[in-house]
C-alpha cells in the first residue's frame, strides 16, 4: 500500500518535471511559429495573441517570392548535398579498411582522425581563408564544399566503420574465395549492404552542411552564392521590429528542412551517435 502511494508520488513528480522540460524546449519553437503566422499589428500584442486572431501565410509568401531567399535555399541544398556525397566517397574506403583489415597502429589512426574533430573550425579557417584567397577560391562553391567535406569526414568514417562492423566478415571471405578481389568485395557486397548506414551518414552530413555558418560566411561574399545560414544572418541584421514576422517566417523555413530530415531518420541517427559516445 505504502509502496503504491510512493510510486504514485513519483509519477506525479515525473509528469511535473516532463511538463516543465517540454515547455522549456517547445516554447521557442511555438513562439517562432506564432510570430511567423501573425500580421504586423498582432506582433505587438505579445503573448496574448499566441494563437493569432487573424493568422496569415503572407509572411511565408513574402519570403518564398522574394528575390534572395529561394536562391539561399538552393545554394544551401547544393552545398550540403554535394559535400555529403564527397564525404561518403572519401570516407567509405577508409571505413572499410578500418572495419576489415588488421594493421599496426590502427587504433592510433582512428583516434587521430577523431581528434581532428576537436579542433575548432575557426582555427583551421584562419589559414584556409588565406589559401583560398590565393587560389582564387573565394566566392566559389567548390572551395566551400571542399572545406565542408574535410569537416565531415571524421564523423562519417566512424559512422560507416561502425555500420560495416555489423556486417559478417564471412561474406567477405566467401567472396574472396570465389575469386573476387578486395575492391569488388567492397563495391559489390559491402557498400550495398551498408545502404542504411550510408543513408544515415548522408543525412547527418546534409544536416551539418545545412547548419554550416562559419565556412560560407568567410569564403562566400557574393549574395547570389550565399547559403541560407549566412543569408538569414545578414537579413536579420537589416531588420527592425516592424518586420520581425517576416524574419520569423524565413527562420522557420530555414529550420524545417533540417528537422524533417532528422525526424525521418531519427532512430538510425541516434543509434549511430550514441554508439560512438557510449563506447568511448
Amino acid at each position, binding site marked *: 500500500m505504502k509502496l503504491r502511494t510512493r510510486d504514485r508520488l513519483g509519477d506525479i513528480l515525473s509528469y511535473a518535471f516532463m511538463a516543465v522540460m*517540454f515547455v522549456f524546449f517547445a516554447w521557442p519553437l511555438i513562439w517562432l511559429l506564432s510570430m511567423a503566422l501573425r500580421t504586423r499589428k498582432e506582433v505587438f500584442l505579445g503573448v496574448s495573441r499566441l494563437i493569432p486572431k487573424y493568422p496569415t501565410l503572407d509572411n511565408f509568401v513574402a519570403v518564398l517570392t522574394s528575390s534572395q531567399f529561394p536562391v539561399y535555399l538552393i545554394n544551401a541544398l547544393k552545398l550540403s548535398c554535394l559535400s555529403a556525397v564527397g564525404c561518403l566517397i572519401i570516407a567509405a574506403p577508409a571505413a572499410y579498411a578500418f572495419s576489415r583489415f588488421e594493421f599496426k597502429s590502427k587504433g592510433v589512426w582512428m583516434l587521430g582522425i577523431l581528434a581532428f574533430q576537436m579542433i575548432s573550425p575557426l582555427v583551421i579557417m584562419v589559414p584556409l581563408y588565406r589559401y583560398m584567397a590565393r587560389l582564387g577560391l573565394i566566392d566559389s562553391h567548390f572551395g566551400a564544399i571542399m572545406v565542408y567535406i574535410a569537416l565531415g569526414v571524421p564523423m562519417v568514417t566512424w559512422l560507416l566503420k561502425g555500420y560495416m562492423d555489423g556486417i559478417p566478415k564471412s561474406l567477405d571471405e566467401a567472396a574472396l574465395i570465389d575469386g573476387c578481389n578486395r575492391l569488388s568485395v567492397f563495391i559489390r557486397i559491402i557498400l550495398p549492404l551498408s545502404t542504411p548506414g550510408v543513408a544515415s551518414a548522408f543525412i547527418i552530413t546534409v544536416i551539418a552542411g545545412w547548419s554550416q555558418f562559419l565556412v560560407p560566411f568567410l569564403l562566400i561574399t557574393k549574395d547570389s552564392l550565399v547559403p541560407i545560414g549566412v543569408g538569414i544572418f545578414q537579413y536579420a541584421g537589416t531588420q527592425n*521590429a516592424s518586420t520581425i514576422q517576416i524574419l520569423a517566417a524565413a527562420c522557420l523555413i530555414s529550420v524545417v528542412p533540417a528537422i524533417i530530415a532528422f525526424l525521418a531518420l531519427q532512430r538510425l541517427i541516434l543509434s549511430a551517435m550514441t554508439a560512438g559516445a557510449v563506447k568511448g
Partner: protein
Amino acid sequence: MSARAVTSKLSFLGMAGRHNRVPSPYPWLMPVILVMGLFYLYPVVDVFRYAFTDLTLLGGEGHYTLSTFANVLTRPELLQILWVTFVFTAGSVIGQQVIGLAMALVVVRSEKRHLFGTTILRTTALIAWVVPGIAGGIIWKMLFNEAPFGGLNSLLRLLGMAPVQWLSDPDVVMWSVVLSNVWRGTAFSMVVMYAALKAIDPSLYEAAEVDGATARQKLFFVTLPQLRPAILVNMILITIQTLNTFDAIISLTGGGPGRATEVLSLYTFNVVFRNYDLAAGSVLSIVMLVISLGLALIYASFLPKDEKA
C-alpha cells in the same frame, strides 16, 4: 575503361590484393589522409608558424617575430575574454549535463511505469538540437526581445512580474546566452545519458534490491558510479563543442553589450576577420587549441584506467 582493367591497374596499389596476401590499408586510407592533411594538419601547422610572424590579412609576406605572442598574451582585454569564455562554457556544460541526466533518468523511469509523454519530450528536445546555431540565435533574440511584446517579457507580464533586460543588462546577458545554449545542446547529453543508463547491467539493481537499498541509495551507489565513464566522455564532447560555439552567439548578441558575451572564439574571429590581424588571431587559435587539449586530458585522467567502458 572496363572494370577488369581498373582492378588490374589498382592491383599494384594493393587495393585488389588477393585474400592470401595481407592487404595494405594505406591505399584505402589515402583519400582521408589527403583531405585531413590538407585541410587540418597543414593549416594547424601553419597557425603555429603564423603565430611567430606579424602577418596581416591585408597582404605582404610578414616577418618572423616573437613580439606578436608577447603582445597578444598581455592584452588587457584577454583576461576578461577568458573569464567570459569560462563562465559561458562552465554554465552551458553543467546545465546540459545536469538537465540531460535528469531528463534521461525521468524518461527511463517513466518508460518503465508506462507514463505518457516520454517520446514527445525526447523528440521536442531533439528538434531544438537540430536547429542550426544561427537560427537558434535569431529565435532566442525574438524571445529575449525587451519590448513589452517580447516572447519572455510578455509572458512575465502575464504572470504579473517585472520585465527583464535579457540582452542589454551586462549582468543578465551571460545567463541569457547560457540559457539559449542549454536549450539547443541538452538533447545530446540526454541521448548519451539515456543510452548509458540502458547499458547498466540490471542484475546490479536486483542485487541492490536484495540488500534492501532505497531508491536514493540505488541512484547514488549504483547508477551514478556506473555512469561515470559516460558522463566524462559526454563532458569532454560538450565542453569542446561549447568552447567552439560561435554562430549561436554572433547571431544572438554579437558579443555585446560591450564585451559581456565575447567568448574566445568570437574574439579570435574579430581579431582575424575584422581587424585583419592574422598573426594575433593565430596566437589566439593556439590558446584555443591548448585549452581544448588541456581540458580533454584533465577529464580523461578521471576515466577509469582498466575498464574501457
